[in-house]
């Protein structure tokens, strides 16, 4: 995850530009069930934007409200400065790639892709050039005359993508675009999506429950939980500075250590303490496995804990250690000090620690 976070497009358009998509107080209830709580969100032109959250948290509902398929209970959707809240999908400058794709089985790949342009009554010659161009972009030349039932999952996915992209939407919406594909194909399609986004320079908003996918694709992520957006930011920000305990464990792996802050000092249940300004309350300290150090590698002034080395696994780029703490907790630790592994044996008593600049102290709610 660390590696993919670094490859994501980091550039963020100027914040003083008006956002392309502006959501204000957007809400959806089904009876007494609130699927999306009042939500404000800005999406800039050129963003590859992820709506990330566990299943059932309201991602699809939010995406469908942007696309015009679900009418919000309250709030507004503005695209390109125009209030589209009361417009149907056919009138919005958006197009959607649906979960399950929804390809038309009685049409060939080419006919599927051309359908929207024909509805728009574009001249036949223009339809042909635009379809040809997009078929080239998603690399479907060999399959253009096939019908959807003769396509593999990855190919069907590219047809769905092409059918939406050929309309040149201001915003392309994708609902779990890669969820139906197997792992290997998913990795390949992620790269494909990045390439397509780069080459057409459009704005993509996609829904996923897979944090790795969000990290790999998006330059901007909104993390959702139970119908609310709990944090919004770039992938590095969300990974490095998660705002809640939920986010820290949902995105990447994290050690979450409970403790208490009293008089400007935090004391962990597992032992160890450090100075930290703030109210007296129960807190959790969040530290990423790769930010922890072990044994002789502990830096100066580190917060230190002692435990029993329960497991060590060589994973190629790093070694993964599991250390059991006396109170019953445990710490996961990734280290690239491969020599250290030979000096340690399982059941050894070891010291683990970290410096306070890599930790996040969060109120434990």
């Amino acid at each position, binding site marked *: 995850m660390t590696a993919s976070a670094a490859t994501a497009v980091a550039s963020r358009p100027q914040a003083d530009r008006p956002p392309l998509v502006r959501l204000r107080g957007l809400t959806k209830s089904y009876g007494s069930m609130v699927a999306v709580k009042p939500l404000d969100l800005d999406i800039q032109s050129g963003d590859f934007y992820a709506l990330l959250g566990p299943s059932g948290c309201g991602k699809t509902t939010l995406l469908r409200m942007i696309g015009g398929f679900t009418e919000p209970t309250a709030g507004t959707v503005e695209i390109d400065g125009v209030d589209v809240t009361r417009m149907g*999908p056919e009138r919005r400058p958006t*197009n959607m790639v649906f*979960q*399950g794709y*929804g*390809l038309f089985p*009685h049409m060939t790949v080419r006919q599927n892709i051309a359908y929207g342009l024909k*509805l*728009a009554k574009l001249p036949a010659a223009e339809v042909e050039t635009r379809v040809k161009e997009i078929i080239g972009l998603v690399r479907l030349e060999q399959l253009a005359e096939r019908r959807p039932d003769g396509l593999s999952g990855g190919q069907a996915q590219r047809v769905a993508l092409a059918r939406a992209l050929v*309309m040149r939407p201001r915003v392309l919406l994708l609902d779990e675009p890669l969820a139906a594909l197997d792992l290997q194909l998913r990795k390949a399609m992620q790269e494909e999506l990045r390439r397509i986004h780069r080459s057409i320079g459009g704005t993509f908003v996609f829904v996923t429950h897979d944090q790795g996918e969000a990290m790999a694709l998006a330059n901007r992520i909104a993390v959702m939980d139970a119908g609310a957006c709990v944090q919004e930011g770039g992938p590095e920000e969300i990974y490095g500075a998660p705002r809640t305990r939920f986010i820290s464990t949902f995105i990447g792996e994290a050690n979450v250590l409970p403790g208490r802050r009293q008089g400007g000092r935090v004391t962990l249940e597992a032992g160890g303490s450090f100075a930290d300004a703030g109210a007296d309350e129960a807190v959790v300290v969040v530290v990423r496995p790769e930010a922890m150090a072990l044994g002789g590698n502990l830096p100066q002034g580190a917060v230190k804990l002692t435990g029993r080395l329960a497991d060590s696994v060589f994973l190629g780029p790093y070694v993964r250690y599991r250390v059991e703490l006396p109170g019953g907790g445990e710490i996961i630790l990734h280290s690239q000090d491969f020599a250290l592994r030979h000096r340690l044996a399982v059941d050894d008593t070891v010291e683990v620690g970290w410096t306070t600049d890599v930790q996040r102290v969060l109120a434990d709610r």
Partner: protein
Amino acid sequence: MPRNPVVLTLFALPATLIFLLFFLGPFIYFVVMSFWSVSLFRLSRDFTLVNYLDVYREYGYSVAFTFAIALLIAVIATLLAFGFAYLIRFRAGRLGPTLLFVTLITMFGGYLVKIYAWRTILGTTGILNTGLIELGIIDEPVSWLLYNPGAVVATLTHFLLPFAVLPLYGSLRGISDAQLAAARDLGARPLRMLIDIVLPQCQPGILVAFMLTFFIAAGDYVTPRLVGGTATAMAGNFVENQFITALNAPQSSALAVAILAVSAGTVLLLRAVMRRTLAVR
């Protein structure tokens, strides 16, 4: 499913035998017999076209009338059934399965029950007449409600509706919500969506629904006798007559074959027209 060809053959054998023995055999026999003739109540196995000439000369009107009324019934039943199936599939939500179940139940309601129900509704002492008198719209019961082609159309359409709903619902079920949402997203208004996305994928269902209703209506002879009155003699009545009363099997065979040929031609024509008009452009 077993793959072994011997086992597969054994599986298919009973149905095939029944089909050959009780359908194809008699059918071929009737076709052959339609070229025979009867003299002095005895079959003579010659080859003659006289039966078909008689179909044209004596029953031409009746065949045309039967064709028209069956077509009307099939068209009305298929259209109504399409609307109903569409409702069940796309609009009724959780109520859909219940509606489908009710549809199935009415199929078991029986044929004669429906005929007598319509007699009760349309008769001179029927619900409609009584109601109209109560409301003061008419003074005397009117007799023209029953015993006319309209009563046949109403009764048979009612009876055949579920037969048409099921195949249509079956083919509508194959159309995913995502397809319709995608069409809408690409700019299709409801009518375009129906023509471009729904109907092309429903062709088999439409054809089966039409075929079932058309064939059953064209071959029926009970309904016209019970609610059709003297002016509504459908070809089926003459087939029955020739067979049972006049004992002229060749003549009635020719009549049956003629109706079948016209019906099959109609269905083939419908298929061709649908293919053409619903082809993706």
